[in-house]
C-alpha cells in the first residue's frame, strides 16, 4: 500500500515537471508583450486572448496551421496506403530480396535530414513541386513509410495465417479479403501507425521549411515572423506555440484507447 503511494507520488511529481515548461508558455501566451517584459509573474494577472485573436484572424498566421494540417494528413494517408500492402507482404510471404528491402527501408530512418536537404530542393524544383503540400508530404514519407511498414508488420504477424487461408478457400479475392476482413482485424495497429505518422510529420521542420516558401509554409516556420523592430513579441510567439500543441493533443486523445490496446499487445 505505502509503496504504491510513493510510486503514484513520484509519477505525479514527474508529470508536474513535464507540464511546467508547457504551463509557462501558456502563461506567457495569455499576457501582452508589454506585460511580460514589465514584470515576472507566476500566473497571468490580467489574462488576455489578444495574442490568440491576432493569430486566428490574420491569414498570414492561420494559413500556416492549415498548410501544416494539409501536408500532415496527406503524408499520413500516403504512408498508410502504401505501407499496408507492403507490411502484409513482409508478414506473409518470402520473396527475393525481402530481408534486404526491409533493412534498406529502415536505414532511411537513420539518414540525417540535413543530408537530403539540398538534393531534395533540387529534385522537387525539377518536378516543379517546390512550395506545394505534396512536396512536404512526399519528403516526410522518407522516414514515415519505413516506420509504418515496421509497426504494421508487427501487428499483422500477430494475426494467424489460417484466417487468410480460410478466406481464400471461401473464394475471397485478395483486395476484398484485405479490405473487408484483414484491415478490421488490425484496427488498433492502423490507429497506432496513423498516430506515429501524424506525430513525426507534424513535428518535423527542416524539410517542411526548406521545401516551402509562402503557399505551403508550415506554422512552425511562420513563427520566425514574431521578430519585429522592437525585438521578439514573446506573447505572440507563446500563443503560436500553444496552438501547435493543440492538434497533437487532440489526436492523441482520440487514439488513446488504440494506443493503450497496442501497448497491451506489447507492440508499439
Amino acid at each position: 500500500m505505502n509503496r504504491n503511494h510513493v510510486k503514484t507520488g513520484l509519477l505525479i511529481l514527474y508529470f508536474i515537471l513535464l507540464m511546467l515548461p508547457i504551463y509557462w508558455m501558456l502563461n506567457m501566451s495569455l499576457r501582452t508583450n508589454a506585460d511580460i517584459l514589465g514584470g515576472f509573474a507566476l500566473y497571468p494577472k490580467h489574462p488576455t486572448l489578444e495574442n490568440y485573436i491576432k493569430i486566428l484572424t490574420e491569414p498570414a498566421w492561420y494559413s500556416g496551421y492549415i498548410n501544416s494540417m494539409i501536408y500532415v494528413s496527406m503524408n499520413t494517408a500516403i504512408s498508410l496506403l502504401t505501407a499496408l500492402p507492403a507490411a502484409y507482404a513482409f508478414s506473409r510471404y518470402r520473396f527475393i530480396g525481402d530481408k534486404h528491402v526491409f533493412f534498406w527501408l529502415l536505414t532511411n530512418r537513420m539518414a540525417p535530414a540535413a543530408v537530403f536537404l539540398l538534393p531534395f530542393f533540387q529534385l522537387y524544383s525539377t518536378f516543379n513541386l517546390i512550395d506545394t503540400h505534396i512536396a512536404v508530404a512526399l519528403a516526410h514519407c522518407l522516414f514515415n513509410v519505413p516506420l509504418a511498414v515496421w509497426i504494421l508488420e508487427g501487428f499483422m504477424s500477430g494475426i494467424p495465417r489460417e484466417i487468410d487461408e480460410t478466406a481464400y478457400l471461401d473464394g475471397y479475392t485478395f483486395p476484398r479479403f484485405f479490405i473487408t476482413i484483414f484491415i478490421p482485424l488490425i484496427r488498433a495497429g492502423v490507429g497506432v501507425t496513423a498516430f506515429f505518422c501524424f506525430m513525426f510529420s507534424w513535428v518535423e521542420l527542416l524539410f517542411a521549411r526548406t521545401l516551402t516558401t509562402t503557399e505551403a509554409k508550415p506554422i512552425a516556420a511562420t513563427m520566425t515572423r514574431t521578430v519585429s523592430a522592437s525585438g521578439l513579441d514573446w506573447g505572440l510567439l507563446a500563443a503560436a506555440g500553444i496552438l501547435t500543441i493543440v492538434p497533437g493533443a487532440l489526436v492523441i486523445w482520440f487514439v488513446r484507447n488504440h494506443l493503450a490496446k497496442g501497448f497491451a499487445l506489447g507492440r508499439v
Partner: protein
Amino acid sequence: MNKWEDNKAWFLVLPVFIVVAFSAIIPLMTVVNYSVQDIFGPGQRYFVGVEWFKEVLNDSRLHDALWRQFLFSGLVLLIEMPLGIGIALLMPKKGWGVSASLVTIALPLLIPWNVIGTIWIIFTRPDIGLFGAAINSAGIAFDHTASPLHAWITLMFMEVWHWTPLVALLAYAGLMAIPEAYYQAARIDGASAWATFRYIQLPKMRGVLTIALLLRFMDSFLIYAEPFVLTGGGPGNSTTFLSIYLVKVAVGQFDLGPAAAFSLIYFLIVLLFSWLFYQALQNVGKGEER
C-alpha cells in the same frame, strides 16, 4: 511462422519501394554526384575525385563537432535510458490512469521541434522564464547565451524533457507484455522488488529497450532544430553539433562539394554505430539463450 514463398509479393511492396526510392535513392545519387565534383555554377563542374573527402576529414572544426556530438549522444543515452525505465515502472498498469498517463507523457513528443526550442527559450530566460529566474534568484548567474556550460546544461534539460517520454513509452510497452504469472512466481519465490526487476522485468524488456536505444542514438545524433532554435550553435561553437555544422557548410557557405562528402560520412557513421549497437545487443540475447 513459415511464410508462403511467392515472388509476386513484390507487387505489394512496389508502392512503398517507389515512394521511398523517389525520396531516398535519387537524392542520395545527387549527394554522391556532388561529393566528387567541384561546382561553380550550371554547366561548370569538374571531377575532383576524393578531394572533398580529404578536406572534410582534415577539417578540425568538424572533428570538434563530431566529439561534441558523441559526448552529447552519450550523455543523452546515459540519462534517458535509466530515467525512462524508472518512469515506466511508476506508471499504472490498469484503470483510468493508463490512458491519462499515456496522454500526458506523450504530449512533449507531439510538439514541433522548433517549438520545443521556443518553449525552452521562454522557460530559461533569466528575465521572464521560470527556470532561469529561479536559478538566478538562488544566486547563480545563469545565462545560456553567454556560458557554454550553461548552454549545455540547458540543452540537456531540454533534450531529457523532450525525449525521455519516448523511452518511457517503449519500456512501458515492454513491461505490459510480461505475463502476470512471472510476477506471481516471483512473489511465491520471495523475490525482492530489486530481484524482480533485475531477473524478470529487465530481461523481458530487452527487445523494446534495443529499439529505444537505437532510436534515441539515431535521433540525438541527428539533432538539429532544437539546439538551432535555443542556442544557434553557440555561444561560440560550443553547441555546434554535426547537423548544425553541416547546414552551415551547405546552406550558409554554399560549399556543396564538401557538404555532400560530409553528408555521406555522417550517414555512414550513424549506420555503423546503429549496426554495432544492434549486433552487440543481439549477441547478449544469444548468449542468454544458449
